[in-house]
């Protein structure tokens, strides 16, 4: 699998607490291929953000990380500080949900952008400034020179998220990890950011790992989708397959909860129950507590990942009979 630029194998992340530790990620594994946009979707608390942080070696203490994450042939878990410094922002860039909190309010956009660029690229101050302007043009911010002189509070949420994207791509990373970058934005601005990321992926061959809980955003942006539940990937496949022929009962339910226009004033489908408490995740298949197809087997034995066809994989005892 030489076309895989980011590979996660059996990732486990725990946060020790006074009583039982929180098992945020429990054996998550998937690969992201060169130039694709992979959507990582799941409910709050399923471990998707922690997985993303682990890819940059950013899991906050006292979190303990086990398993393997290979970015462009190099292991991230247990890597040296020097190696991590090169990785962050250089090979892998990340943008966050709230762009207002991700920028330092005391420095201008220009100062923050050029600082990042000078860490990763062999340029002087004016060279860095040119690269920053180039990056701001790339994300289609009008008047990039003016934007460089602004402080974060002088820009709107949509403009700030564009600045974040510009900062992320300014060092020419292999991979962009986007952690719910549109959740805090208006629908209109969300659409603009989706189109922007789609264009960047196409024109620059940027690999994107896009984390969201919004099915609409995934459908309009991602080539492939990985569905995460209680710290594991339960299903993965192309967007077409996952939206039209989902195999896992959780994916099926999740797809139905999204409101879509044209249905009129009706009740929405819901997934009964709650996301499990990750201090004591259910035995067997973690979804069995909310699944209408659960058998005795599902309560006891955790299902293995099976390949259905092509690159469509699923972890469910009953996937084949339910399809």
């Amino acid at each position, binding site marked *: 699998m030489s076309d895989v630029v980011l590979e996660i194998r059996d990732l486990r992340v725990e946060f020790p607490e006074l009583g039982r530790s929180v098992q945020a990620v429990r054996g998550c594994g998937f690969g992201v291929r060169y130039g694709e946009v992979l959507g990582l979707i799941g*409910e*709050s*608390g399923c471990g998707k953000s922690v997985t993303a942080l682990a890819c940059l070696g950013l899991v906050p203490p006292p979190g303990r990380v086990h398993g393997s994450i290979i970015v462009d042939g190099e292991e991230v878990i247990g890597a040296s500080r020097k190696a991590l410094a090169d990785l962050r922002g250089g090979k892998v860039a990340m943008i966050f949900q709230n762009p207002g909190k991700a920028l330092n309010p005391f420095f201008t956009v220009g100062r923050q952008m050029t600082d990042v660029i000078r860490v990763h690229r062999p340029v002087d101050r004016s060279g860095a400034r040119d690269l920053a302007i180039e990056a701001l043009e790339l994300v289609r911010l009008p008047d990039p020179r003016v934007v460089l002189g602004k402080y974060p509070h002088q820009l*709107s*949420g*949509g*403009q700030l998220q564009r600045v974040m994207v510009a900062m992320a791509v300014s060092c020419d990373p292999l991979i962009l990890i986007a952690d719910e970058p549109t959740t805090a934005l*208006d*629908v*209109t*601005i*969300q*659409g*603009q950011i*989706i*189109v922007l990321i789609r264009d960047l992926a196409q024109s620059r061959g940027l690999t994107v790992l896009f984390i969201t*809980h*919004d*099915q*609409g*955003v*995934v*459908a*309009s*942006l991602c080539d492939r989708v990985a569905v995460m539940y209680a710290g594991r990937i339960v299903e993965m496949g192309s*967007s*077409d397959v996952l*939206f039209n022929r989902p195999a896992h009962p959780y994916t099926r*339910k*999740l*797809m139905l*909860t*999204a*409101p*879509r*226009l*044209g*249905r*009129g*004033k*009706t*009740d*929405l*489908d*819901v*997934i009964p129950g*709650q*996301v499990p408490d990750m201090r004591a995740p259910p035995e067997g298949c973690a979804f069995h507590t909310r699944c209408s197809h659960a058998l005795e087997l599902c309560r006891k034995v955790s299902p293995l990942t099976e390949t259905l066809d092509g690159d469509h994989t699923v972890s469910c005892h009953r996937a084949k009979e339910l399809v």
Partner: protein
Amino acid sequence: MTDQAHLAGADRALLTAANLSKLYSTRHGVIQAVDDVSFVISRGETVALVGESGCGKSTVALTLLRLIDRDGGTVVFDGRDLDQLTPREANAMRRQLSIVFQNPYASLNPRMRVRDIVGEPIHTTSGVSRGEREERITRHLLSVGLGPEHMDRFPHEFSGGQRQRIAVARALALEPRLLILDEPTAALDVSVQAQVLNLLRELQMSKGLSYLYISHDLATVECIADRVLVMYLGRIVETGPVSDVFTHPAHPYTRALLDSIPVPDPSQRERLQPLRGEVPSPLNPPSGCVFHPRCSRASSRCLQASPTLESFGNGRSAACFHDLIKEQ
């Protein structure tokens, strides 16, 4: 409720807001946050108020509740002008209006137990006995799907969806007739959003509540609202029954909002047509039609004159010089 019922007579109106306006003076000048906004909410009806951040939709909500003072216009609730009330009457009237805020992580006091969060409004407004209060708290919690075992817990012990249920229970504590829902699901997951929206629909049917539902997400508006008001830069640009407005929008802004919703279907990916640009600064609004800098149809007329909200039948009206419906 259908639109016919809405047209059947003004006596069904629970709340009538006429020519609301709100000005904010800032260091840099005066902002007209709400400009000549009028609408009616009938009994048992859900009216949605939609628009981007900063268009004034939350300001409208706050003026209705008199959490901020308005600078012009009248609000008639249940046949009585809110400005003509004595302070005592105004207080009684306030119990009939309530609000659920956007972020249940910020709107619930982290140091109060659920029992006190829901019980506080009952305690401060009515002299009911302790037993009666407990009984009411239990009933309200039950109606939002929470049990007595949750009463003594703190907000941090609940998920986002459950917190929003607590906020709804608090809003219902005084048995209001009109509930203002200010983006009640914007901070929640899509799967949890569905649960909360279903709950709100259920409560409306069982209690005969009226809702003013504020949102920027038109997909959720469709599954909860009867009529919709589309707001842009402090003004209403289109109104009408949800099904008509969403299938045949009359204002280019409504069309643009509809086209910015990502559809959960990969084959319809190309339909996502985000609106260009951002909401202009209300300190320095554009000339003529305030939407013209972002509008695909703007003509020279739109740059000079500001269109007024014109009614064109079937309970619909729009403020645009172009006839989008005829063009379709």
